[in-house]
Structures are given as C-alpha cells and as structure tokens.
C-alpha cells in the first residue's frame, strides 16, 4: 500500500555512511568493552578468549575508539557545514515542545489522550537518542582518554580520577548499550522496520506518524534551497577554516593515541643470587 505513496528524502549518502561508521564502531566497542567490564564472568571470559585474549581485545577496543572519534569529528564538521554554509534550520535542538510531545505520546499510548503528537523533522524520541549519543560519546572519550593515558592525566588531576573514570566509562557504556538495545531498536526496528538510514528515503505513512509537522511544511512548499551564490561565498570561508580545524584535531587525535608510554613492556627482572650457602656448612640438622 505505501508503495503507491510518495517517498521522501531523509538522509543523504554522507549521513548514511556516517551512521554506518557509528554503527560499526559502537558495536565493536560494545563487544570488546563490556566483557572487559565484567571480565571474570564466564560469558565475558569466553568472549575475550574468542577474540584473542585480553591484550588483543584492548587493542581492538582502542582502534574502534579511534574510529568513533574520527566519525565524531567528521560529524561536527558536517553539522557546522550545514549550519554555517547551508544555513539549515537546527532541527535537532531540544525544547519544551519535545517534552510536551513526549507526554502527549505517553498519554495517547495509554488512552488518556485522544490525538497523537504532531512532530517535526526530528521528534522527541530521536532527539533523546541523538543527545544521549552526544553526551555518551563525550563521557566515553574523556574517560577513555584518562584510562588510556593515566600518567598524563595524573600530571594534572588527582589520582582518584582514574578509578573514577573507569567506573564512569563502564557504567556509561552499559547505559549506552542498554539505551540502544531498548529505545533505538524498538523505535526503528521492532515497532516498524525503518529503512531510511539505509535507503535514504522515508515512507509517507512514517512521515505522517512520526514527522507530521515536517510533512505539513513540505506540503506548504516550505523547503527552500539556499542561494547557490551565498553558499559558495560561505564555503570559501568555511573550507579553509574547517580544514585547519580538522587537521589540528586529527593531530590532536594522533597525540591522544601515541603520547604516553604508560608502562614498560616487560617487568624488570631482579638478579638474585639464589645459591648462597652458609660457610662453613653447618651440621645437617640432627
């Protein structure tokens, strides 16, 4: 039935690739990270040994972390482009309306409210999702850095921050994974399979249910293409600035990864003279 209905563009190719990178890095981080948190539980020990032992798991985890950070940097630059160059409305910013929409949706679900909320391009559910990922990524990157570089960290901060970072990193990971597995999976896979992040297009029915205001705005013809000349002008500023910032951040990332040699690779061996017989040899114990 909704084959006959028009499909709307929702995510372009870059956005979908970006999401793919996020998906892969997040998943790898979760399956290499959670067993480290629960390392001595049998399921975790099994996973760790399947993946090549704890040292290998840690390396995979850090590699995926770098991938996530690169993806995050890209995201900031891409959003900056959309905001500063193409002047797209910042539809992801949360507001009180989203709280009201959430309450209305809840009421509608239980039958207390007659009509469902009508929501824009990104509804409250997606905003929760998005900002949770932003918050979570910030926490994970900061605490991850502390765990990866404890000596550099304790040069400035009290030592207690390291075990605190470990607790925060593990717990935040748990929160993130549980959120994805419940909220994200239900809303986009279980309730209905939303293919927009893979195909780039969203169906009319989905638009009606989840982004009714956007549909309305589209019907009104509100979509405006920005003036190409203006875009080019802004690009001329944006491109060098963004390039410089990106390079600086990537150099920063490189240092992040390589700066500290936390520990020597082999435990120092003490030379101990083991055979030091008492002389003269005492009488054997009689």
């Amino acid at each position: 039935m909704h084959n006959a209905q028009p499909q709307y563009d929702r995510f372009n190719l870059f956005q979908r690739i970006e999401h793919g990178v996020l998906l892969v890095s997040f998943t790898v981080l979760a399956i290499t990270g959670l067993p480290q948190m629960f390392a001595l539980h049998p399921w975790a020990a099994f996973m760790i040994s399947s993946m090549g032992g704890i040292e290998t798991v840690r390396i995979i985890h850090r590699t995926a972390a770098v991938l996530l950070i690169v993806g995050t940097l890209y995201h900031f630059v891409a959003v900056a482009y959309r905001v500063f160059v193409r002047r797209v409305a910042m539809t992801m910013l949360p507001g009180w309306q989203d709280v009201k929409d959430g309450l209305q949706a809840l009421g509608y679900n239980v039958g207390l409210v007659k009509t469902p909320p009508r929501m824009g391009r990104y509804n409250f559910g997606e905003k929760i999702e998005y900002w949770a990922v932003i918050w979570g990524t910030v926490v994970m990157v900061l605490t991850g850095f502390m765990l990866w570089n404890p000596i550099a960290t304790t040069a400035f901060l009290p030592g207690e921050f390291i075990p605190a970072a470990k607790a925060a990193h593990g717990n935040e990971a748990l929160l993130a994974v549980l959120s994805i597995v419940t909220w994200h999976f239900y809303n986009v896979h279980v309730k209905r399979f939303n293919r927009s992040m893979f195909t780039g297009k969203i169906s009319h029915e989905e638009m009606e249910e989840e982004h009714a205001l956007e549909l309305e705005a589209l019907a009104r013809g509100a979509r405006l293409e920005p003036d190409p000349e203006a875009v080019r002008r802004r690009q001329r500023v944006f491109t060098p600035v963004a390039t410089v910032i990106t390079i600086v951040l990537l150099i920063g990332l490189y240092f992040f990864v390589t700066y500290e040699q936390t520990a020597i690779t082999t435990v120092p061996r003490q030379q101990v003279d083991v055979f030091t017989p008492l002389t003269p040899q005492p009488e054997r114990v009689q």
Partner: protein
Amino acid sequence: MGWPHLLWLAIAWVAVMGATLLCSQPVAAQTAQPPVQPTLQPVTPPDAACRLCHAASTETMTLPSGDVIHAGVDLSAVAASVHGASAAAPVYCTDCHAPRQRYQYPHAANPAQDLAQFQAEIAANCEQCHLPAQMHNPGHLEAAAGSAAPNCVDCHNGHETAPVAALQADPVGACQQCHQQFDDPLLADVHAEVVANFGVGQSCQSCHADEPQNEDARCQSCHSLLTRQLTLSSGDTIDLHVNPEEIVNSVHGARVIQGVQYTTLRCTDCHREQGLRGFPHQPVDAATHRDLTIGMQQVCQECHSDIFDRNADGVHAQHIVDGNLEAATCADCHGNHAIHDPDEPRERISQMCGNCHSEINAQYATSVHGAALLGEQNPDVPVCTDCHGAHNIPDPTTAAFRLSSPQMCGRCHADAELMSKYNISTEVFDTYVADFHGTTVTLFEHQTPNEETNKAVCYDCHGVHNILPVTDENSQVIKANLLVTCQQCHPDATENFPDAWTSHFKPSLEHNPLVYFVNLFYMIVIPVTVGGFLLFIGTDIFRGIRVWVGRQRQRGKDA
C-alpha cells in the same frame, strides 16, 4: 706260763708294731724329704718334683701325628706370667697338667694324637679357676669337633700366659695366628680401632657372640666405634662413625604411624651394597661425597616413591639432572640417620632452606612473615614450603608461577577467619582482581598461563621475601614509598599517580569517595533511564495491541 709272761709279751708286741709304723715312711718322701724341722715348716709345693726334672730337661715327646713336645720348661717365664709369682693364689704344674696322679713319675703315656688334642686336654682344666668357656669364647670353644677352633691355650699361651690386658691391647695379633684375614691390613686396622674404642661392657663378644647376630648389630658394632674416615677417589672423606641412637630416635625408629606399628629401619635397608657383601665392604663407587649423597636418593625412592616422583618435577632435581650437583637432594634437607619431622618446629624449615639460600632466608627473617615465625612461632604465617612447596618446587622465575601467585597469596589473605585475627582486610584479593592489574593477570592465568605479562602481581609491589607490614616505614606500599614502587614499571609516573590505585579498598565514603559517587550516580541513572524507556515502550506496545485487537474486531464486524 703265768700272767707276767703275757704282760711282757703284749708290751713287746706293741713296741714292735709301733716301731714298724714309725719306720714305714714312703720311700720318696723319705729320700727327698729335707730334714724334719720342728714346727713353722713350709709345706712342700706339690710341683717341686716336676720342676726339678722339667726345668733343665732336653727330652722330647713325639706324638703319633708327628708333633714334637719339648719337656723343658722355662720356669722363669712361668714365674713371670700371670700364673706365676704375681698370681692371687699359687698355681702348680699339676693344677693344669691334671689329674695330678697321672703326672706322678713315671708319667703314663699321653693318649693325645696330636698337639691340638694334647693342648685341648690341658685347656679343659682352665675351667677350674676361670669362667666357664661359654661365657668367654663360645664361638671358638663350641666349634664342631675336628675344626681348627682354638682352645684357651691357643690364645692365652701355656706357660707364658700374659695378662688379658695385653691381649686386649693387640687383639689382632692374638687372633692373627689363626685368622689370616688379618693379614689384610684394612681388616687388621679396623679391628684394632674398634677394639681400642671399646666402651664399658663392650668386647669382642659385642660382635662375635653366641646368639645369631642380626645384621644391624654387626654393622653397628664397628661403625659405632669407628672414628676413622673413608677417603674416596676424589679425595673427599666420609665420616664412618654412626651413632645407632640417632636412628632409633629418628622417624625411622620404631613408631606407630596411623595405627600401624613400624620397626626400626635396619642399616641394610638403605645400605644395600654393604649388607649384601658383609665385611670387608666392596669399595664405594662414588668418586665424590656429593656423588654418594645424590646416589643414595635411589634408596629413599623405594619407600617414598610418590614423594620422589614429585621431587623429580621440582627445580632442585632438574638442576641435578642439568649437572648442577650443588642442588639439594633428599639427605641434604632431611639428614641421613637422624631424620626428624621436618616441621617440628616450623622454623626448622627456614633454617634448612637457609643453609643454601642464606641471603634469601636473611631477608625472610626480617620480613613480616619471618619475624612472626621466628619470633613468636606464629603458626599462621607462611614458611618457605608454604609458597614454594617442599618437593615439587616450581621454578619461581617462570610466567606460570608469576601468574598463579595471586591465588597463592589469596589462600591466606582471602580467608576471612584467618585475616580477622590480624585485622587484615580480605578484600585485598577481590579489589586486586577487580582492577586493571588483577583482571589481566587472572585472565592470563585462566587462558594463557605460560605467557608473560607485564602487569603487577602481589609481590611486585609488596616485595618477595622482604614483605613488611604496612605499619612499617620501609614498606614498599605505603603512600610515602609507593611512587618509587610504581615507577619500577611506570617510570614517567608523577606524584598523583599512585593514588590511582584504590589501595585494596572498595570505594566508599571513606576511601575513594569520587568513585563511590560515580557508581552511585549510575546506579540511579541507569535504572531510571532504561526503566523509563521500557515503560514508554510498554505503553506503545499496549497501544499497538489495542489497535490490532480493534482491527480484528472491525474485520469481524465487516465480514
């Protein structure tokens, strides 16, 4: 005839009878008798007549066997002998050459066939004054008839009998007349030494007595008296003195073990070679003392095979196999004869190990464990064998030992009952394992126990043999000293770094409160957030079901 004639006849008869009586003296006495002296006259020695003839006689007597017996006797030698002037009671020729009547002149023919028989007959008379033969020399005197067993005269001589002390002073010389074994200088030498060292109540009898000797008595009879040493081909010497009391009082003495009565171990139970061959012993194979000691471990194996097998896996046995003969073998730790329970008292063990590992033992003695053991005989602290094992001692330099060491420390330090006596937290083990070092080491131990890891184990921080209590100012792990300890592996660490370790405390308001609050925060946020999600999802599902049910009803109506 009248009565006066009868009276004179009677008187004449009495006179004639009396005269006859008075005059009928024995002829010899009459002829040899010195002039009769009135009173205080010494009684003539019964052997005076013997002496007169035999002192200067050159006569000989030849027995049927061809043995010749000289009649001449050196009387001065007899006088000088123990039976002579110094004797307690006079000894006359006929006391030995008995019975006296037989030896009255002319002597009857001597029935002896040979010299031995001649002497044996005389020797039989020694018993009149001296101990019955059984008590003195049964082995000799009760030998089968016809054997060459000696009689009294063979050893003690006939006329020139010397005092017993002289015999004892040179027993070998006396015995050598018959026992040509003593031509072997070693045999002669050993016997001489043994006899020289006779204690009270000891004599040749101690070895060579009548009752069948058990092998041990034979061994001990020499070895308990010897003071000499055996020299091996390398020049090493071995003390041959053995105190039998040591074995009786050792674990190998008679004792009841688990309800079974064991008898004392015999010399030959261990010293098989010597037992088989008796004396003189075969030369000892071993070239050096060390070879001998190490070779003897085969003997221990016979009874203690399980321990021997465990020991063979251990580092000491491996060293010996590799050619380092200084490594300890059974006797080095347990002794050879005076073997006692090795842990009575427990300090014995550290002293024993310290014989070779003296520097390590010195460190141990000043450590918290060693000081408690040596100072107050504390039964709870570990001694060398508690960590290293006694027999199958693992090489402590291997990765496997290192990775398994936290479990080893945890045996005591995770035991709540034990630790409560000393106010030491049992969380030490749990907190270690929960943190980065311990998690890694535990995973390695489970998954790749032989792989090296650079993560710290208990003794990397606390010290190995020099562990001090945390109240000691020199402890490696107290705050003041911890940076240096961490810098062993983290050379770039700075002042704040050691605080990254939670010091074996679970996070609480008192210890590491920041961590405690982070955990508390998430303990609230996670259930609230995820719970909220699930709640919302639940309502959505609820609505979905209602819609679906409604549609079903609608279809039903439409149909």
